[in-house]
């Protein structure tokens, strides 16, 4: 076959309908796959998604709803004061870079955790506050679950109250999302239970006198009557792990961050309620 004949054959082949149809169909299938798969992956239909507060007793609901009764508001107030306090070797306050937090921090919490290119992993709101602290204020990072970090985190999250949770699971976040889901569905501990066994397969049912929630983080940090203080979602994870008699990960472990991302994706559209109140 001459070179011309080869070229002509290739052109003819390109014109052949099936040669065009196959890649087109593949492309269509791929784009459909990308477009519909996250929705199909949801274990609880969007119309059925309910914030944890709806499973709480009326007394707890009214505690959360009333800013003057909600104990978590004390942490918000403390956080507001810390926001204006200069810290670190740089002696700058959060407010110097982020004035008017009711505007500059509005909506920020709805997007956490997110992928952080600087660290190459996920970062949650508490981690972001610490990242700012070390990089901008040149201060020591605050310990996870310390009163100061909880107060700042609660304060920042409260600026998003009422706004819908919306996190990205695209790009480099996707691997963390997948890891979070795998953890959520992995049975653990002597009781051999996964998060999904209670919070997706049995939500609305009772464990003793408690109604099982769907397990979202949209109200965190929360004030728990059991704790008598405000605590993070990671603390809540540890309580569940302890309950199923599983080995805990240390605070700040990547496993908790992956789980936080998965929970935030599950909570898509629910309003931020920080500071939440629970029994």
């Amino acid at each position: 076959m001459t070179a011309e004949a080869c070229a002509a054959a290739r052109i003819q082949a390109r014109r052949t309908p099936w040669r065009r149809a196959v890649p087109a169909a593949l492309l269509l299938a791929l784009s459909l796959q990308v477009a519909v798969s996250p929705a199909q992956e949801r274990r609880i239909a969007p119309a059925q998604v309910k914030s944890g507060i709806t499973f709480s007793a009326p007394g707890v609901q009214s505690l959360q709803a009333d800013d003057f009764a909600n104990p978590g508001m004390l942490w918000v107030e403390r956080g507001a004061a810390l926001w204006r306090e200069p810290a670190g070797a740089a002696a700058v306050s959060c407010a110097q870079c982020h004035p008017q937090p009711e505007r500059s921090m509005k909506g920020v919490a709805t997007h956490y955790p997110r992928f952080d290119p600087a660290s190459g992993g996920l970062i949650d709101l508490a981690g972001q506050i610490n990242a700012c602290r070390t990089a901008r204020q040149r201060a020591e990072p605050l310990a996870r679950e310390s009163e100061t970090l909880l107060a700042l985190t609660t304060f920042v999250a409260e600026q998003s109250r009422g706004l819908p949770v919306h996190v990205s699971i695209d790009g480099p976040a996707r691997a963390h999302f997948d890891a979070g889901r795998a953890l959520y569905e992995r049975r653990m501990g002597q009781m051999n239970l996964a998060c999904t066994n209670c919070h997706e397969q049995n939500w609305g049912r009772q464990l003793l006198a408690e109604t099982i929630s769907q397990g979202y983080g949209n109200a965190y940090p929360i004030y728990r009557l059991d704790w008598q203080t405000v605590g993070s979602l990671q603390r809540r994870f540890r309580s569940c792990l302890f309950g199923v008699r599983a080995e805990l990960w240390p605070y700040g472990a990547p496993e908790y961050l992956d789980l936080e991302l998965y929970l935030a994706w599950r909570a898509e559209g629910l309003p931020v309620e920080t500071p939440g109140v629970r029994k």
Partner: protein
Amino acid sequence: MMGRSRLAAWLTLAASLTLAAAVHAATAAGAAEDAASVAGAADKAPIPPVAPPGTPALLPLTVDGDEIRAPLGGLAGNAQRGREVFMSRDANCSLCHRLPGGDPRLMGNVGPPLAGVAARLSPAQLRLRIVDFSRIDPRTVMPSYYRVAGLTRVAARYAGRPVLSAGEIEDVIAFLSTLR
């Protein structure tokens, strides 16, 4: 930071919450979504005794269909003790199962209610369901109370031990067998 009256209101509230939490702690058995979350529970929990080295973790048993016919270790159960085990923090049966006559608002309903369970299941059937329900239904949420293999990330203090001893399981079977 806050007004005196607000502080007073908060203190009153805190006192009532403490009471509520105390009542809650007294009634809740533990692994419930909330009950498990007592602050610092991980530090305060009593550490169960560790079996001496060389003690076999589990006694041999034989599964026949949906039954384990022979009592574990050939032990005879005691119904009164079984009721105590049932309500204990170790077993936590009432977290998921309601007993006849109990207040439904204070008892779990993740698992089936146990009124009349002795009329539905024989002791041999109960034995397998308590020992390892996952052999009947791998998707079950019922924990396996006499199993140490195939578990993931078991906390060190529980590693290699079943949730209940053979004797405790026979006691629970004896108790459940009274629920006709």
